């Protein structure tokens, strides 16, 4: 399952880097593509970095009716748009930009599953694929200058191990 998470994250991260080279954030002096997996980030009380996509992996399920023991993994991707101006009147536009970018990088809805714990990474022989993302209503988090949105989708994959 970890290979699926890694492959999904890296596919989206690389697509984002190709789509919008300026969609980067600087955290602790390091500049990186504005996409992260929440569970891989340091535990902190700070609010999420603005204008950055966070991937949260949720409940896995098995689809035993399908040949090859197809598994699925629910996934949420949230982001908070923050304006750079004092009046914050462009926060809606920034939210729209982020939403459009997310919807763009989710297509095509599949990628190769690879083992990224090795270098170079190793092809694991199957693809992962996912549903089209569904966005929820705009939310206002703690800071009024921010707008938050969450998109959900389900990732499907075949396990590397035999399940009996």
């Amino acid at each position, binding site marked *: 399952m970890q290979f699926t998470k890694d492959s999904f994250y890296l596919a989206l991260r690389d697509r984002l880097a190709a789509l919008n080279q300026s969609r980067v954030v600087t955290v602790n002096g390091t500049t990186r593509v504005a996409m992260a997996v929440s569970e891989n980030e340091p535990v902190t009380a700070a609010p999420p970095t603005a204008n950055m996509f966070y991937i949260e992996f949720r409940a896995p399920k098995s689809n035993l009716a*399908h040949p090859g023991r197809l598994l699925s993994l629910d996934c949420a991707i949230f982001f908070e748009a923050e304006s750079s101006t004092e009046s914050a009147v462009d926060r809606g536009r920034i939210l729209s930009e982020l939403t459009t970018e997310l919807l763009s990088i989710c297509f095509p809805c599949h990628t190769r599953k690879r083992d990224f714990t090795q270098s170079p990474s190793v092809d694991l*022989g199957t693809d992962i*694929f996912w549903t089209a993302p569904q966005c929820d209503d705009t939310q206002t988090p703690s800071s009024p200058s921010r707008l938050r949105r969450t998109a959900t989708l389900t990732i*499907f994959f*075949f396990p590397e191990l035999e399940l009996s």
Partner: protein
Amino acid sequence: MSPSSQRASMVPISRTIRAYFAPVNREQESAAIFDPARHGAFDLDAPPAPWLDLGCIDAFERRSLEDADVLRTGSPSVPSLPYRRACGVHIECDFRNWGKLQMALACGSQHINVLASDSNSDIDPLGGTPLSGLAILPGSTQSEIVLGAGAVNSFQPGDLIAVDLDYQQQVGYVGNPIAGAYVRDPADVRRDPDFIRRITFNVGRVALRTATSLVLAQPLIGGTPAAGASAQKVIAFADREGGSFLQEWSALFIFQEDAGGRICLYYPRLVTSPPPGQVAGSYRESRIEIAMPISAIALHASFIALPRTDTLDGESILCYRSYFPAPQAAVY
């Protein structure tokens, strides 16, 4: 790689079917060929010539009309020799994109370019007397139509144009190089010099106008225009219920793979036809709900397959199914 991964790769998973069509040479009844060895698992957004991308289709159904039986021998009789009494294939699908080709295939009859006409001309369901064609000049290609200074100003970026020869009273299939109609008698078409441009598939949209030429947004389907061809502005596309001409094209349907291998269905010759034996009639458009009452309108198409004689063994073949296994997938 684990055996389970090899087996998992044997499950083709797809959410989209793509349609590609290519013209059949009607004079010689020779089909366009999809060669899995040469064309391979090509980039679905850049099909190899002569295949034309008609976009995604919905409601794809293919039904075998095969009639098989078995010869019985002995007493009491027992099945001893199975055989095919008749072969046939019927296909239905909905084209999600509307365009000249999609309309022509869905209607199945002659497909008409409604040419721009003089405001004083007689009214007609397919457009009145058109404005005269403008001769195209040497140096024109399938992507750029050279008209010369002055003449080029008759067209604007965004215009649709039809490019083909004048009708010269010939009989038989007309349209260069793709047949768009069949003329039995020049009198049937009133010896109209614009007739071929009314039915030609060589239609393009002007993306850019230079001082002497028109640059097209997509290359002309028929390739570089024939010497002596003219260009006329197209206002709309039209088709008709009725008529005797039948479209015949080669078709390639591909299950766009999300995971697993790629499945390709190649029909050398498809002719528009309602389902055999259907009494209730066939619907022409389908509505695909977006959020009621908003719907997308799709073009419904229905075909029967005609055979191609396979040079491998002389058999009459209606359809070829090819499968490109996923990388590292088990063979069986």
